[in-house]
């Protein structure tokens, strides 16, 4: 069946689960006594264990970043455009690790898991996670896989925040960082959008203060609205306009409130699909992690001071039409890295696709990202030849 997958795909992949029995102290003051992380790997870890690349996922992402779970899958993993043989993150060169974060709803310990203290589902009592908590848990996974130092930690959007956090929390364990369509902190407008999404979920009659599973209910309406709001911020005005314009579903106005414009139909469809595959408590928790991330805040607002532990080169990529995490947010990060005297490269990629551009094929983005990753591979090869004493 593998013949049916594209040649630049990692092909069929199987998720694995790692169980951690020692407690993980969290930023909120609580402790997870034990936890599980679901992850996938692509490519081969080299003998020096130096070619590992960690992929950090965004708000609604998960461990399945590339390849297919089943020969019948219609769609590959969420970042398949950039992970695979010969792609920007070349699985012929790198060993790629992609996990589902704690609090997620794709297999890692989260609100739908059983709280060992009560024997009941965590539900809304699952601790609110922070980006720092996630990075600590990811470091445990790296330990388990025998990875002392990642060749690169890479992430888009919320994933980019995790990559930043890695470079501050574990500078000795990361050789390169790439943050894509990310921001060093949310703006008031970003938090406002998240709050509307949370209110949509929390005011759904089927939410039951987060105990919907016990009632065998799903707050579908709230999740749908949350996704519709979020989705608007992922696209640019231009991409929505060129895709839907003012096109109508039928050829006339109905003077009613059913779906009339194509864009309404599209958003409702996106919301409906999302509401059946994503967990409401996870969505709330992920948006909180976004809101809370503010490394500068812990240093009197001085981002350069927060970044002072960084010991590796950064690649920062933004997209011209991204208004969720606008290019100016990436430039804030770049300027702080400059002020802190760190190595940093930056490009603002021309794309009409808004925030979503980080997931989509784009020749310029691909060329820059590939060049960065190839240099990392060059460094690894040079390191290997030096260690071998052949040159």
């Amino acid at each position: 069946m593998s013949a049916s997958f594209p040649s630049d795909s990692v092909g069929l992949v199987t998720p694995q689960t790692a169980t951690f029995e020692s407690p993980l102290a969290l930023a909120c003051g609580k402790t997870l006594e034990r936890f599980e992380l679901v992850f996938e790997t692509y490519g081969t870890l080299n003998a020096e264990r130096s070619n590992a690349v960690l992929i950090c996922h965004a708000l609604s992402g998960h461990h399945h970043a590339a390849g297919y779970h089943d020969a019948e899958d219609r769609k590959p993993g969420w970042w398949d455009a950039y992970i695979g043989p010969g792609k920007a993150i070349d699985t012929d060169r790198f060993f790629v690790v992609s996990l589902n974060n704690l609090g997620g709803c794709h297999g890692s310990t989260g609100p739908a898991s059983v709280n060992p203290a009560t024997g009941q589902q965590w539900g809304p009592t699952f601790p609110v996670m922070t980006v720092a908590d996630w990075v600590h848990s990811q470091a445990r996974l790296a330990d388990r896989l025998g990875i002392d130092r990642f060749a690169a930690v890479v992430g888009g959007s919320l994933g980019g925040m995790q990559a930043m956090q890695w470079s501050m929390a574990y500078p000795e364990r990361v050789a390169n960082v790439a943050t894509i369509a990310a921001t060093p902190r949310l703006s008031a407008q970003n938090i406002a959008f998240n709050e509307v999404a949370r209110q949509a979920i929390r005011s759904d009659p089927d939410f039951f203060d987060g105990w919907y599973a016990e009632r065998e209910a799903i707050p579908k309406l709230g999740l749908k609205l949350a996704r519709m709001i979020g989705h608007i911020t992922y696209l640019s005005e231009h991409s929505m306009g060129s895709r839907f314009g003012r096109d109508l579903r039928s050829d006339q106005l109905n003077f009613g409130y059913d779906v009339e414009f194509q864009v309404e139909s599209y958003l409702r469809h996106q919301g409906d699909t999302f509401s059946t595959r994503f967990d409401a408590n996870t969505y709330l928790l992920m948006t909180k992690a976004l809101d809370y991330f503010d490394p500068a805040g812990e240093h009197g607002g001085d981002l350069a001071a927060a970044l002072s532990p960084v010991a590796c080169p950064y690649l920062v990529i933004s997209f011209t039409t991204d208004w969720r995490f606008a290019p100016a947010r990436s430039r804030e990060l770049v300027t702080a890295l400059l002020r802190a005297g760190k190595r940093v490269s930056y490009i603002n990629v021309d794309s009409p696709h808004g925030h979503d551009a980080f997931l989509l094929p784009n020749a310029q983005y691909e060329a820059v990202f590939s060049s960065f990753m190839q240099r990392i591979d060059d460094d690894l090869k040079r390191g290997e030849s030096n260690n071998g004493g052949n040159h």
Partner: protein
Amino acid sequence: MRADLALIYRWIAPNAHVLDLGCGDGTLLAALARDKQVTGYGLEIDPAGIASCLRRGVSVLEQNLDDGLGNFDDDACDLVIMTQALQALRRPDTMLDEMLRVAPECIIAFPNFAYWKHRLHLSLRGRMPVSRSLPHAWYDTPNIHLSTFKDFAALCRQKGVTIVDEAVGSANHEGHWSSRHWPNLFGETAIFRVRRGS
């Protein structure tokens, strides 16, 4: 390496922290990092140049020089380099101020409009010069502020900027650099090393 870059390469001290404005494919910074342990950043707007820099391990920022250097602190670097970009800037004079704010010293290379072939072209044909160093037509050239070797020296005097070194050479790759004999007439490319006023 391009002749002007080869000369600049020789002028730069080991372990310097430099900023290269319009760094192109990163050839100069990569060679300086490899041979002289020079650190720093390149600024570039061409995506192919940026990709090439990344491949070479050169830290490169997409940044339009006309937007200034506001993201760099005073004295952020030891040296600022700018080759073949001065003539394309909206305000070359304010850029010179910016460069000398960010570093105490800078090196600037640009096409010398007073080169004898340009003079001949203009005086005999009565048309704007088109040459090896100025290959564009007047209507589509990015070079909006052409100047001469003497013009730049005059700007430095006017601003109280100290000229440490000056040289002219041909724009092609067999560089013979000199400033002794009629530089304003025989130099195709001008290079200045300047410092903040004493």
